[in-house]
């Protein structure tokens, strides 16, 4: 142990017993609040065996929900990746009036309740909404249809990539991009060869969080989807539907898929943090 660490510990100076109690308390709380529910999900899902689990997942409505969730994520992740990069680039590499306001605006989807977000889209695109008559005149359905679900998901997952990249890009500054320009690179070459490689791990991390949220979002999607079975139910909504029908095995089977996704996200995230901690350090995670 280095001298600095030693001094630090001495300065904090709890007796061994107190430390032990604190550690046990923390672990116990973690087990109760996080591990136990997680275990319960999987235990309940597999309570009637593997074949029941498989049959439950294979039901057409559930399969449709899985398909819809994958489609929504497949749209939301790339779109918010591109816009996240554009936002972060604009904010980190340029100075303009109202920048602070702009940055807080990006956080809005985090601070507003997802239900409110869903309602906003209903108000805008619903039958009696602002664009409702125009949309129905052109036979375009947004609310209670896939476009609405995609919009709501785009809204709630909007900040992840931008939030991840802004501190990273700010810390890296403009020097390397300017150097590339003086060496004859055009804007696209500069982005592709210099900017993107410098942010790649932070970007991947942001995309991962976007994906997790896009697949797991309940509130906003619930308001706008209309819960049409086999058509506008995503996985989280399907869990609710099955649960309300007392189909616990089914509900927990779908829930276990979502929980599995969360675990995979967590593992990849931890691996990323471990391998690229220096680069991610600037991002404040």
């Amino acid at each position, binding site marked *: 142990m280095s001298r600095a660490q030693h001094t630090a510990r001495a300065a904090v100076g709890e007796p061994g017993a107190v430390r032990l109690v604190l550690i046990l308390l923390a672990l116990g709380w973690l087990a109760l609040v996080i591990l136990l529910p997680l275990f319960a999900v999987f235990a309940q899902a597999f309570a009637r065996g593997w074949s029941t689990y498989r049959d439950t997942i294979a039901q057409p409505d559930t399969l449709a929900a899985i398909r819809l969730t994958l489609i929504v994520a497949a749209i939301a992740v790339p779109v918010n990746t591109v816009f996240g990069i554009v936002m972060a680039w604009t904010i980190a590499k340029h100075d303009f009036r109202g920048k602070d306001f702009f940055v807080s605006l990006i956080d809005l989807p985090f601070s507003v309740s997802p239900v409110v977000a869903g309602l906003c889209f209903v108000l805008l695109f619903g039958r009696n909404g602002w664009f409702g008559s125009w949309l129905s005149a052109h036979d375009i359905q947004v609310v209670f249809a896939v476009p609405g679900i995609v919009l709501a998901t785009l809204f709630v997952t909007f900040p992840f990539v931008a939030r991840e990249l802004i501190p990273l890009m700010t810390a890296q500054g403009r*020097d*390397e991009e*300017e*150097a*590339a*320009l*003086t*060496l*004859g*690179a*055009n804007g696209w*070459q500069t982005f592709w*060869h*210099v900017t993107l*490689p*410098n942010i790649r791990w932070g970007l991947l991390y942001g995309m991962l969080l976007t994906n997790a949220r896009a697949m797991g979002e309940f509130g906003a999607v619930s308001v706008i989807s209309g819960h049409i079975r086999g058509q506008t139910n995503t996985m989280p909504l399907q869990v609710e539907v099955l649960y309300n029908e007392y189909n616990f095995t089914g509900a927990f089977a779908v829930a276990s898929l979502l929980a599995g996704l969360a675990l995979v996200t967590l593992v990849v995230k931890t691996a990323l943090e471990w391998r690229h901690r220096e680069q991610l350090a600037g991002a404040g995670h």
Partner: protein
Amino acid sequence: MTISIENVSKTFDTQSALNGVSLAIEDGAFVALLGPSGSGKTTLLRIIAGLAAADGGRILFGGEDVTERPVQKRGIGFVFQQYALFRHMTVAQNIAFGLTVMKGKDKPDRAARDRRVQELLELVRLPGLEKRFPAQLSGGQRQRVALARALARNPSILLLDEPFGALDAKVRKELRIALREIHDRVGLTSIFVTHDREEAFALADKVAILNLGKIEQFAPPQEIESAPASDFVRDFVS
């Protein structure tokens, strides 16, 4: 190549950074822009490079107006204060960058690029380091790589922003000599920004002294010492 700066001005918000600056720099000259911080010297260098736009005035290279020409097409080499090496690329990739981004038939093939990298590494006295990453180099080595990279496309003008600012005294002296040699050998016209009087006088053929966005004097070092043009110059160089 001659560089003419004609009545260049630049304003940031309400503060004026450059106030009608004019300089005529001869072909092959080695010029220092010397001044205290906030005198506008870095702004002037960035305007010459095309990294910043002037609000008024003209820049001419070899008699040709380049004021509206983008930085990529000005044919300059630029060395940044903190080197700005591409951290995810090796030394060789850094140096070859200017060649790899060339388009079409101008772009040298792989073998020609490798040859050029070797040539430049020898020029800056760093042979054998091509596979290293910038993080694995000392400050002086990074500066040499930055110099090699800036020279890869054979610019006729080399611009350097506080090139020795972050280095210790011994490395700084070595690099000064190296830079002067390279300047003479390659036949460059060079401008460097510094706030260090001794450095400017030791290295440059002519020194431009800036204060509050204006040129106080533009003359060879001996002349500035023997006949300072203003009280500011007298105070600053003594």
